[in-house]
């Protein structure tokens, strides 16, 4: 039964993702001729269609898939970890930590890069790890497993503290740096090259490894630490694994595309509506659907008001906001 359902979920969402992946690079504000793009006889430097396809669109689609999958899966795991359906990757301050890291890089280290990768995404990732470390330390204060209340409060405090740092940095920054920071905070999937994508794959892969053993355990964790422990879950260990994996996933996603909201909170709920609450179905479903969802949102962002492109965070908010409200109202009823 579960085996069959899992196969259906993966096949269903997987084919949807493949479809979206195949169509998205073809769509855009300009028409691109595929035959020209793949025509090897034209030197790449002259082939505008090829450049649009391979430089502008394809990395964007791949980036959107990774960011969408990363944020959606992190959302699922955080919601289980905190036993709160309103939790999101932003809740514990991990994505805020990434924003602070990026801001510090933009303001204090402009124009620098390490191994060909701009310091901004690297600092963003470091920032997310920093926030993770603080939350992790909080969680260890209680060896019997994290109290979700302590974690949530800790996340609120961390977010407030990081907010103060953000204001301080903005105060020190000059106009251009502030402008760049604001742009970064709106999120952008216009990656333009494959380097940042490959760099993001590393922590995402690690997160994936962490996720592999989690799904059934997460089901039990949502019943509460005692109920989970009574059924054989090493709750403290499971919670730590969940926290680290979801934070790695969030950090990678935010460093690649900036803080894009609503994906991490709305996609898990939409997937649960379609497949039920078993995390063995929800987690892979969220990865696949989250990827497709963000690719679609980015497509909307770059075509809706052509030739102007909207920041993708606005599109996810426009779609995600009302959906989230609707989900809330359903729950309350």
């Amino acid at each position, binding site marked *: 039964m579960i*085996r069959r359902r*899992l196969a259906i979920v993966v096949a269903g969402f997987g084919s949807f993702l493949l479809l979206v992946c195949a169509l998205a690079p073809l769509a855009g504000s300009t028409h691109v001729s595929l035959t020209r793009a793949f025509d090897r006889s034209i030197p790449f430097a002259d082939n505008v269609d090829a450049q649009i396809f391979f430089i502008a669109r394809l990395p964007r689609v791949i980036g959107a898939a990774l960011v969408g999958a990363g944020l959606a899966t992190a959302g699922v795991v955080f919601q289980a970890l905190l036993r709160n359906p309103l939790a999101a990757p932003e809740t514990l301050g991990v994505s805020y930590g990434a924003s602070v890291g990026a801001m510090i890089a933009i303001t204090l280290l402009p124009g620098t890069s390490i191994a060909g990768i701009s310091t901004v995404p690297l600092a963003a990732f470091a920032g997310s790890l920093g926030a993770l470390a603080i939350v992790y330390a909080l969680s260890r204060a209680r060896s019997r497993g994290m109290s979700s209340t302590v974690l949530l409060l800790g996340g609120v405090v961390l977010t407030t503290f990081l907010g103060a740092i953000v204001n301080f940095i903005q105060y020190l920054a000059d106009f251009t740096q502030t402008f760049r920071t604001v742009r970064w905070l709106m999120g952008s999937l216009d990656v333009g090259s494959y380097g940042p994508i490959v760099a993001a794959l590393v922590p995402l892969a690690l997160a994936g490894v962490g996720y592999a*053993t989690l799904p059934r355990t997460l089901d039990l964790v949502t*019943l509460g630490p005692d109920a989970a422990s*009574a*059924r054989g879950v*090493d709750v403290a260990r499971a919670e730590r694994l969940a926290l680290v994996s979801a934070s790695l996933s969030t950090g990678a996603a935010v460093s690649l595309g900036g803080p894009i909201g609503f994906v991490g909170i709305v996609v898990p709920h939409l997937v649960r509506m379609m497949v039920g609450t078993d995390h063995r179905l929800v987690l892979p479903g969220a990865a696949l659907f989250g990827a497709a969802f963000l690719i679609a949102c980015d497509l909307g962002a770059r075509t809706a008001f052509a030739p102007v492109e909207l920041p993708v965070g606005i599109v996810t908010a426009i779609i995600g906001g009302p959906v989230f409200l609707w989900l809330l109202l359903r729950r309350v009823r």
Partner: protein
Amino acid sequence: MLQAANVWFSYVASGFSRTRAGPPDGGRHVLSDVSLSVSRGAIVGLLGPNGSGKTTLLRLMSGTLTPDTGTVTLEGRSVGSFSRLDIARRIAVVAQETHSTFDFTALEIVMMGRYPHLGAFELEGPDDLRIARDSLAATGTAAFEPRPFATLSGGEKQRVVIASALAQASEILLLDEPTASLDLGYQFDIIDLLARLNRDRGTTMVVSTHDLNLAASLCSELVLLRRGQVLASGPTADVLTHANMRALYGVDADVSINPRTHRLTVVPVGRAR
């Protein structure tokens, strides 16, 4: 088989490291020097007013909590030395309350009881499904299979949780007030179920309860807890006395053998002066 020896426990973490030599200072002890021995196949009842430490004692015995001093052993080995999975295969716990954050169905809740028997990537098979369904049937909740757990009444939830513990197929069952939110009819059903389990499968049980008559009819031994200390322990008939009821609850109770059931019954008559 399952034994607690000289256990002290306090929820308030002391400021300094606890020594093993003696009871720690500071903080109110929820349990003070509690000892309890459960032999294979016995049904031991924990009786006591609210706050006497019954739930804490059960959590210590399942290994969820570690005592400040003293030991909890399963067949001679400290409970803390087993892995969580090992414990779960041998001890199942029915908590007083179970909350489900997400919309799991009753069947899914019961299937979670199969967790300790599955490998890391193993999915439930037809045997697991059969065991889960049998457990639901045993607690009279087969009809709730597809219903979201959160939509069930308190009593219905409790029976599903008992089914989930049954699905764990463990030799020891710890139950925290299993009949607390149940209708009278279902109370009898659960008592019958537990008695049957004990008789047919030899399941060892520790049941904490407020229900004096459940204690009287089901349990072969009783442990009376008052303010974290053992007031009395031993065979039911020896422990369930008028004097003990007075000391434990402050009530004047009639303890007698019921002519129909031939079992001890306790009828509280009034406040003890």
